[in-house]
């Protein structure tokens, strides 16, 4: 009824070849074909931000992307955020401040925060609020997340 297609993707700096149905979203390819289950999903229709990855450094919803559109671009997922065993300062700040409660929205939010700090290393509180406007979290009330991003931006004291 349909056949799989070969895609060449660059994920966390690694070149990956994957055969998948062309209708599969990047989210499905990451999780089900490549075993990168760190990317989560909360709606699969582009409403909650949970499945956010970075495409060439910009936040993008993996549930709305098709792998065919992404050949030649750099896809970053949560699995690529730490440098080996060394956590990214954002990851460490989230862990230290309890910014991840259930942890389900955390990968997407961390990647949005990563992109934000790259463009704007010292964001104000309202700039952080705005950057996270597309990522729902039901546990924290967002406040610990804001604080963790500020902590990571300010550097460890």
């Amino acid at each position, binding site marked *: 009824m349909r056949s799989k297609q070969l895609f060449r993707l660059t994920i966390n700096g690694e070149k990956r070849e994957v055969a998948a149905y062309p209708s599969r979203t990047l989210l499905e390819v990451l999780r089900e074909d490549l075993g990168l289950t*760190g990317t*989560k*999903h909360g709606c699969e229709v582009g*409403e*909650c931000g949970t499945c956010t990855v970075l495409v060439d450094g910009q936040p993008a919803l993996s549930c709305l992307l098709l792998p065919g559109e992404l050949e030649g671009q750099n896809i970053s997922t949560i699995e690529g955020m730490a440098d080996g065993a060394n*956590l990214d300062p954002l990851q460490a700040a989230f862990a230290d*401040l*309890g910014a991840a409660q259930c942890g*389900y929205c955390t990968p997407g939010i961390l990647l949005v925060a990563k992109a934000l700090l790259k463009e704007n290393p010292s964001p104000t509180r309202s700039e952080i609020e705005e950057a996270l406007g597309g990522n729902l979290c039901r546990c924290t*009330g967002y406040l610990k997340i804001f604080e963790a991003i500020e902590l990571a931006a300010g550097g460890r004291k």
Partner: protein
Amino acid sequence: MKVIGKPLRKVDATSKCIGQTVFADDIFLPGMLYAKILRSTRPHAVIRSIDTSAAESLDGVKAVLLGAELPITFGILPVSQDEHTLATDKVRYVGEPVVALAALDEETAEEAIRRIKVDYEDLPPVMSITDGVKPASSPIQSYAEQGNIHKTVSFEFGDTSAALEKADLVLDDTFFYQGNTHLPMEQHASVAAWHPDGKLTLWSSTQTPHYVHRALARVLELPASRIQVIACPNGGGFGGKSDPFSHEIAVAKLAMKSGRPVKIALTREEVFYCHRGRHPVLMHSKLGVKKDGKFTGLTFQTILDGGAYGSYGVASTYYTGALQTTTYHLPTYKFEGARLFTNKPPCGPKRGHGTPQPRFGMEIQIDKAAELLGIDPAELRLRNLVPANSLTANFLTIRTIGLQRCIERVVEASGWKDKFRKLPFGRGVGLACSCYLTGAGLPIYWNNMPQSGVQLKLDRSGLVTVFCGSTEIGQGSDSILAYIVAEVLGIDPSSIRVVTADTDLTPVDLGSYSSRVTLMTGNAAIQAAERARAMLDEAVAEELKIPKEGAASAVDFVKAIQLAEAKFGTLGTVGSYTPPRSAAKYKGGGVGPSPTYSFSAGVVELEVDAETGIIRVHKIWIAHDIGRAINPLLAIGQVEGSVYMGLGEALMEEQEFRLGVHKTPSMLDYKSPTSMDMCPVETILVEEPDPMGPFGAKEVGQGPLLPIPPAVCNAVYDAVGVRIDEIPVTPEKILKALKAKAQGKDGRYGPTAFPAIEYRDPMFILPPWEGGDGRSINQPEYTRKGV
């Protein structure tokens, strides 16, 4: 103390920040099939026929399951075992599971679902409280008390008629609390594996693996000893994953039928149909007050819009009347409650379970009383506080109560005295308080076994492993076990491994609901750890010939374990926790008792744009009596999360239905607060260690939600002088109330009538101060009106 009270990382924090935590949908097993469920498109209909032939003939479909194959019903409460895994003869809401099937991949399963034909014969749907109280030609459930009235309850503690008569002021109000849903970020998922030796394993996003275990055994007719249920870390629960669910049983049966592992991952729309969220509740409250502000009595009536099945609903109904007595002393109290069946997804327990609704009405009514009496609302509350170590009118035992300090602290922190009735038009402050359980006193099914068990394994490597059935839903329950055992044994929490929520490996804990986990698993963990410490002390004391007390700390921890292992053999200890017996001996008195209660007070400051009705919340101050914070960082996180969720309920979250269909079953249409809607929150932890709690700890995950909705409404009144007696408080409601006020009418928006409903004859119980002993004085069992 070295661990307790410290703002440590959670034991699973790093995993969650690197994407390594394995949620249920992250499990992939070799040969695994994918399941999908066909759901009802009709709110109320008889199933004439189901034709699955075109689905079964589709290449890649491996098993199809119909309701008739699983005739045994289930349900979380013993009194409402009313759910079939898949509908058999009738559907009762849009979204009810009808057929399940498993295929090689999700795409094939979806295609197969589309090929199934169901022939329905529609019945009249019942979609509201107004319709639900009417006589029914086709009742939704055959076991309802009358028509679509599922259950009524009625108690009277002391003579409320006399008490209201002798009051200087009687407030008579109706309130409505709209239903809303948990909206956990993780969509429910389950994976089942059936082994040829007759053993079943289910991984699931559930808050209550123990109850899922029991439901599987019952419906599948397997011995429970052959079923393993593993609760994966939940990607948010809030009560929405605490029922056994159709999809959990369906994948288990599909695995048995196909001989292969089967996964199901619900879509977001399906999560809305699972629901079990906040009951919409209509309330009628009459409060008697003396001129000096002292309450003389309260009568409180509730009608709950329950949805199509029982779920926790009978307990929810009792909860709408249970905790009115625990904050302010009520010399007399009458409660009448009723739950209706309607053709909507079943309601159940959401954070605060049945108590935010009555708390909403009560705290607004007290605000109104304060205004009529010319007493500051904070002062009026302080004049009525329940004393510590006392019994309430309905025989709940209050031990420590830090509510006075909570009120004083938020009043001070918020600058209440300079703001209340003093801010310019459009800006206002509102105050409200609350109380919540620290664990339900009784288990959901009657038994006299412990409600929580902990096992410790210590071995010569120095490793301590904690085994407990408790379920990590993001609140930090795994971490609490590690902190407590570490504190008692005098070691670093990072050297402890925690194994939880696996019915094959861990002793029973009833689950993550009713704010029970820290207190119950914590006390069980203390007992197990103290027993282990005693063995280490004894072994070291013998070796070094020193007194036993604290002897273990004279040597390295690994050495102490090795000495103990040499002396006693393989090391292991257990601990258990069972709540104390309740003083309430009357039938129905089992809902409400708790080992101890938490208290909260909140102040909301907001701005109302009188032109648009739009509210902007500036800040919330919240003080919470937690007894003691095991980890203040996590405790503050729970408070902030509760405040956030309360704010969402107050301002925007609501479930509405049109023509039998859920209007907003998506995350875009179901409005919840985003990062841009959230306001700053100042959290104050009030710590008065409670003798019932581990190291004095009480609950924190639910109680702080409760003051927020009424405090918002009280602040709206302070800001623009209109009373919004229902939530959510939308701009439209504010504008309607402002318009009415401008026309010289009552500046109020809210329900104007309470339907006549035949409650049971009340059971009379004399309050403790009238010589009552906790038993009812009129009849040992209920009488029933009209049946």
